[in-house]
């Protein structure tokens, strides 16, 4: 039985796909058979971030409609043998994902994979609800910014009332992943801090991913940023994966170093 993880946020553009790609990669590189599913019907993007866009032949909706087998649609990652991607369809039909269809695909995947990572579309409507419905674990991606925090709280409400686990009266494991964090701006009171967001959302912190140029570079190249272990965001994603697997490790890149702080103070 695979564990199903949804990467969700409510608000768009906060880093769900970036996080799905890196977390899926991190799990697979530790030997877990992992598949990342793009639930963003009509706005396929995960394939680009994973660098496999030219190998897409069939997609999630083709499998649901039995126009292709799962094996035909799954794309094996070129870097990590235990990692696969199931791309989203480019169809404009938002009704293409049915609950029965999704369940069927997840059941099949569950037989061979250890982790199924669901990259949710933005919003709190049908598409996002479909991505989170079957989840055992939710990673709530949040930016330190008012509208993102509010939307994260709304998505938490949906997780706690409209997911399969909630309907069965079971607990869904919730994790906060704070991304695009800028410790400099936090230090001068211009940005909500980790503690602020934790206070408001009141769920355990999985990781803090700093705002970093490496993310854009990684997406340009089609290589998930976790492969870039020179970059702060790559290291922070790796830490987050280790915590997801139960390790207890301190959070890095949350505070600015003294040297940097004074540099900024004097405007250097």
């Amino acid at each position: 039985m695979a564990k199903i993880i949804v990467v969700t946020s409510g608000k768009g553009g906060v880093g769900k796909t970036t996080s799905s790609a890196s977390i899926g990669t991190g799990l697979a590189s530790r030997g877990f058979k992992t598949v990342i599913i793009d639930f963003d019907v009509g706005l396929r993007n995960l394939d680009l971030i994973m660098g496999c866009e030219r190998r897409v032949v069939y997609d999630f909706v083709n499998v649901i409609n039995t126009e292709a087998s799962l094996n035909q649609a799954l794309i094996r990652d070129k870097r990590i043998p235990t990692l696969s991607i199931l791309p989203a369809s480019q169809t404009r039909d938002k009704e293409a994902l049915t609950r029965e269809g999704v369940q069927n695909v997840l059941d099949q995947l569950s037989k061979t994979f250890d982790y199924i990572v669901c990259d949710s579309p933005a919003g709190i409507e049908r598409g996002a609800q479909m991505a989170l419905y079957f989840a055992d674990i939710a990673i709530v991606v949040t930016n330190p910014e008012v509208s993102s925090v509010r939307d994260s709280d709304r998505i938490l409400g949906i997780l706690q009332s409209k997911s399969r686990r909630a309907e069965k009266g079971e607990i869904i494991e919730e994790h906060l992943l704070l991304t695009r964090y800028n410790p400099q701006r936090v230090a001068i009171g211009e940005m909500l801090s980790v503690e602020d967001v934790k206070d408001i959302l009141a769920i355990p912190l999985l990781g803090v991913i700093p705002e970093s140029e490496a993310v854009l570079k990684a997406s340009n190249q089609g290589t998930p940023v976790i492969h870039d272990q020179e970059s702060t965001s790559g290291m922070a994603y790796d830490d987050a994966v280790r915590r997801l697997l139960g390790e207890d490790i301190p959070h890095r890149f949350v505070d600015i170093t003294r040297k940097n702080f004074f540099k900024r103070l004097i405007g250097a």
Partner: protein
Amino acid sequence: MSIFNYFLNKRQPASASVAKERLQILVAHERSRRSQPDYMEKMQLEILEVIRKYVEVDQEQVNIRLDNSDDCSILELNVTLPD
């Protein structure tokens, strides 16, 4: 950001703490609405209409809460009437 701006900023509350305060209020409000039964909002509006037949009140002056205790639920209605 120079040292000059830094001390200047100190005089007014930092924007992040304003953001936190606003979020705490909003999130608490939205959570309490989520935990209400679906009919509460409509009932609140209808009660407001009934009161308005007799007294002129604003929406903010009518406060309705449902408290669930072990063996019963209490519907609490607070109306601030104008003098």
